[in-house]
């Protein structure tokens, strides 16, 4: 169990949900993330950019055999710092959400 560490920078719903979607996988492409999170490409792109700016995510472009043009698909992954931040934040949220014992 990770020690709880509330991280305001990823508490915003879309950022947190993106981190949660990326945590169990090695990498995910934009289309998969948009499908899982139900976000538009613009919102997802903005959120990914924010996490990259924080050093919590990284992106890479790969050629896709599914594309007829020369454009490449972008995949996203959490960095080690992102994984630590997410794990700590989730532990903090879980502690916060736990039922209070005080009457």
């Amino acid at each position, binding site marked *: 169990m990770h020690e709880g560490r509330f991280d305001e920078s990823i508490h915003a719903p879309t950022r947190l949900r993106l981190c949660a979607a990326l945590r169990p996988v*090695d*990498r995910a492409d934009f289309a998969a993330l948009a499908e899982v999170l139900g976000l538009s490409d613009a919102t997802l792109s903005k959120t990914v950019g924010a996490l990259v700016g924080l050093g919590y995510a990284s992106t890479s472009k790969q050629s896709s*055999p*599914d594309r007829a043009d020369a454009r490449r698909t972008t995949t996203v992954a959490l960095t080690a710092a992102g994984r630590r931040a997410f794990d700590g934040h989730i532990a903090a*949220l879980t502690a*916060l959400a736990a039922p209070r014992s005080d009457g």
Partner: protein
Amino acid sequence: MVVDMESDFDAGRGPEPSARDSLAAIAVDRRRLGRLASAPPWYYPAVGLGTAVVVASPAFGSPVAMAIACALAATGLAVLPSLFARRTGLSISRPAGAGGVVFLVALALIVLLLLMASVVLVVLDSRPWVALTAAAGFLVQYPGGLLYDRIYRAELSRA
């Protein structure tokens, strides 16, 4: 006292509802992720076929034939994750929890035992019976893989 409904630290309200909402939203996303990460129908039969070839390889007549068969099967098994990633947009190389780890280790041990059984059968000059160990290797991976997917989805939603 001004209560800022957007703040996680609303006076008298506390961050608990926001924390629960966040966790609930994550749970919904994780269920969607689990469905997306489920293997396509051809995946585990292909894994089973590769496993059957490996388990049957001691019966192929020579060390060279056995090595070639294992190399081809291993290549096929190595390509499957790439095909999965291309289809789903997800690259996954680890289980979602301890249960998945235990399950995969158990599958690997069973396949190893089946391979050893094939070797014993060949040594005892009972080569035709290797078809049974190979079939068992296929059956371990095909329903076994489907069960692993269920374990993965369950552990993913709890992670």
